[in-house]
């Protein structure tokens, strides 16, 4: 799978989710922040995008913290996303 294909698959998985809130947040993150991530952070984001919404939502809201330090870095960026 080439980079375009991988990115499109990720885009689909970020913007066709169970909850509108997550479509909006992950979609925005993908466009604005994802291109600036380190390779390790990008991998961590892909893993997080594969989580279910009700697993990810408490992490985004700060009601839970991830065990993985790289995920924590990505999460800090995700928590700052503003959907306008």
């Amino acid at each position: 799978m080439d980079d375009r294909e991988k990115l499109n698959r990720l885009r689909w998985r970020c913007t066709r989710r169970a909850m509108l809130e997550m479509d909006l947040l992950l979609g925005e993150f993908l466009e604005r922040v994802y291109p600036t991530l380190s390779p390790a952070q990008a991998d961590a984001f892909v893993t997080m995008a594969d989580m279910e919404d009700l697993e990810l939502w408490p992490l985004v809201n700060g009601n839970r913290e991830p065990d993985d330090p790289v995920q924590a870095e990505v999460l800090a960026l995700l928590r700052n996303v503003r959907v306008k």
Partner: protein
Amino acid sequence: MSKLSVPVRKFDAVIVGAGGSGLRAAIQLSEAGLKTAVLSKVFPTRSHTVAAQGGVSASLGNSEEDHWHWHMYDTVKGSDWLGDQDAIEYMCRKAPEVVVELEHFGMPFDRTDEGKIYQRPFGGHMSNFGEKPVRRACAAADRTGHAMLHALYQRNVRANTQFFVEWMALDLIRDQSGQVLGVIALEMETGEVVAFHSKATVFATGGAGRIYYSSTNAFINTGDGLGMAARAGIALEDMEFWQFHPTGVAGAGVLITEGVRGEGGILRNSTNERFMERYAPNAKDLASRDVVSRAMVTEINEGRGCGPNKDFVLLDITHLDPATIMKRLPGIREISIQFAGIDPIKAPIPVVPTCHYQMGGVPTNYKGQVVGDDGAPVRGFYAAGEVACASVHGANRLGTNSLLDLLVFGKASGDTVIDDLRSGEIGLRDLPADFADRTLARLNRLNTQTGGASVNECRLELQRTMQKHCGVFRFKDMLVEGVAKIVEVEKAAAHTEIKDKSQVWNTARVEALELDNLVEVAKATMVSAEARKESRGAHVRDDAPDTPANPNGRDDVNWHKHTLWHREGNRLSYKPVIMKPLSVETIALKTRSY
């Protein structure tokens, strides 16, 4: 691609959609030993059923006396007497059975101290035919939909249901006689187009809430089943009826709970006026949902909206003590910051009435069979859940009946498929020679189109048109203009251009195909709404006001009937509401008041 190169896979049953109704139907079919395929745009547990938090209703009577007949009465009343009483009786009678079954599938319902399913009160749930509130809603904390999907999915894994994940169904296959023979679908990972040739096809594709600019629906809800059905010549029923919530974040659609007004939140217009004082001098901002929504729309329509386009009002909690906001409304502060870019402690939240649920859909009977214009079942075609119109929700859905609808009619459609196969009513028939032509032409058009409109711009235009012309409160002239505008949008959408022409993971193509479906639903909604010259349930018109002759604007003499929208000719016909239940007396027409 020529049709010769469209591979064909054969199944006993193909189910499109893997939310609650699709998974429930699949259990019946797979456990009966049928070769069953379920197609889904996403992994099943990512379906929008997850967003249903409130619960599922059933007259179990675990906490106090309850009866399915009382549940039926509440549902008929909620529907503003537009629901079909045979289907409503069927659903309410079946509710205890399907809820207990779900418990046996492993659903972690909240429990009473004695270990029974705990039941809580919910708006509109009453005992003894509207007398007093009753506890009828069963829930799994605030994750009912999520827990339900997981229980149903696990059961399907056990039953060897075959899942096709990240596949989009594109069109229904019908033969000359009108029998449905399956669907044509696109695999996103390969770009391959495949025919799923089946004896039975079940649509469980969910709603189309994305036709509105402001919608609580996730992006996935593009009405694919409705688009496919309409293109295949199936009329869509009661599409003018959409449930709205008064306060969604303007632009984003994310819900702001009614609790914000309960805590003292005030709605303001562009002159900073607390406008609800004019519309509801006593209840003010705590007036009922429909009153608040109508007032908001009137303010916007009369030029007192806020922002550069004057298209929202403000929900103000800046006068509340920040400590109260942090303590009582923490989630709302986060949502406002994330989705409106404002901190509600410092500035008011932009809000608009927001689309939530689709009452209309593909016409079905209470067995889950899709019915044609003549009222007879379309052979080989079934539907359940939000895509279907049984019609149990009529002009307005009673809370917690959406999850019940999934379970009851998901199961019923599965059982009916089994019956129809056994009786020989349906079977595998040859595919017509031209089965893929229309779909391939659509794909070919997208692959070769140059100089066309952008999919995003077209979708935005469609959503803005629906929001402005056919929102929660409707006006004659706006609807008439809306019909003309939506036809213009359709013309542009017929010439959308995608820059990416590749095969593998071409999400631009998928979004263009989703837009085709949104267009069909938008036309059906606008045309049906323009024509219905009364107010009923969720369809409220300025020119059909509350009068002694027509309480709440409802005109039973002329409009107590179901709308059918036909894609060909963009025209309407009507059919009677089924007033005769299966075993009990008709619940006679009455003014709906709470």
